[in-house]
């Protein structure tokens, strides 16, 4: 079904956020899930073989066109971007939240050995982290977790794609 391929391609092109199979199915209507998955795989292969300026990536439980990593210097030149976006402190705080969620601030403070109020606020502002609710303990502290945007920014299909802390340790040794 050539039509389906063109429709999915056009949706991916126009969308601001990664499109999941379910979302595509909602829009397209009668198509089977399996067909959509197959078309997405086909498209990824086509763009991959073409070796053009961008490729189709699976990210945050969806699909999105993204530029090829090796071409990033050109984009940076065009945009005049600063190289780094997150400080080591922010990355550490984000790592604790990503691995320990749902987690309260006191636990993040304890793991990092510093008060994380400032970095936590920064991560909330950047929408990489969100409040998940309140923990049912005295004081009802707020629990934090990562967002869908976190998956998008860090190029993750889902949280399970993160290596476990044990795996990281083994890699290091």
């Amino acid at each position: 079904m050539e039509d389906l391929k063109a429709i999915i391609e056009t949706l991916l092109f126009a969308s601001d956020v990664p499109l999941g199979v379910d979302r595509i199915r909602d829009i397209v209507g009668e198509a089977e899930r399996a067909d959509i998955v197959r078309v997405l795989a086909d498209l990824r292969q086509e763009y991959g073989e073409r070796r053009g300026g961008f490729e189709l990536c699976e990210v945050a439980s969806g699909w999105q066109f993204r530029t090829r990593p090796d071409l990033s210097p050109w984009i940076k030149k065009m945009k005049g971007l600063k190289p780094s976006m997150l400080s080591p402190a922010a990355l550490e705080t984000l790592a604790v939240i990503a691995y320990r969620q749902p987690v309260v601030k006191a636990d993040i403070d304890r793991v990092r050995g510093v008060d994380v109020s400032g970095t936590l606020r920064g991560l909330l502002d950047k929408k990489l982290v969100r409040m998940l609710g309140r923990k049912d303990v005295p004081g009802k502290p707020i629990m934090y977790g990562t967002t869908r945007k976190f998956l998008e920014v860090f190029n993750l299909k889902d949280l399970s794609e993160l290596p476990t802390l044990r795996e990281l340790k083994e890699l290091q040794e």
Partner: protein
Amino acid sequence: MGYEIKLDIFEGPLDLLLYLIRKNEIDIYNIPMAVITDQYLQHLEVMKSLNLDLAGEYLVMASTLVHIKSRMLLPTETDPEEDEEDPRADLVRQLLEYQAFKEAALNLDRRLLLGRDVFKREVQPELETLSGEEEELVEISVFELVEAFQRMAAGLPREEIMEIETEKLSLSDMINEIMEKLSEAKDLSFMDLLGESPTRKKIIYTLLALLELMKIRLVRAFQSGPFGPIRIFPAVEEWNGRSQGDH
């Protein structure tokens, strides 16, 4: 004895300790407390002398180190049969945990980050969503109402001429007027209630009447976001019938 002092900004006391352990090639499970405590305190001194903003956490860790060091010097009085925990155990656990997350943070940073290594298309927001944004109503408190009043009052021209008015407004009249208007319109904004070119007095009475009505829960006020228009709704449905019956 000269020590090499590193002055990069550490991410915290644990980071500094890990650095010292690595630098001295120390086994993390068997930390020589005397050496590490000395070096730690020296780093603190240098940081202090340079007026670096020394967070309280560094000082807490310093006291923890000194405490562990002193505990290790004391002979243990406990039963030798019983395995007493190493005074360093807690600290080691904390260091290992922190090290694991530090590695996890580095691993996150090594990924292909959106906006740094890879980029997506920037889709412009559609024209429609720009203009026809849906109003979302949130219940507001008396304070927002007072703020709205202040904005209105500030916008009035200050008249120099003093006027003695004979017409007397009463609060109960105003309350009745508001409920009457509400029963017809279902919901009204604060501005609607004031009508065209309201006097200072009218604004004050309207506000007081609204505050009274909110207090006795006959009306509820909602606002669509900060500084949005405040809308007044009747709180109870049967009021409609009653007020209509009154006339």
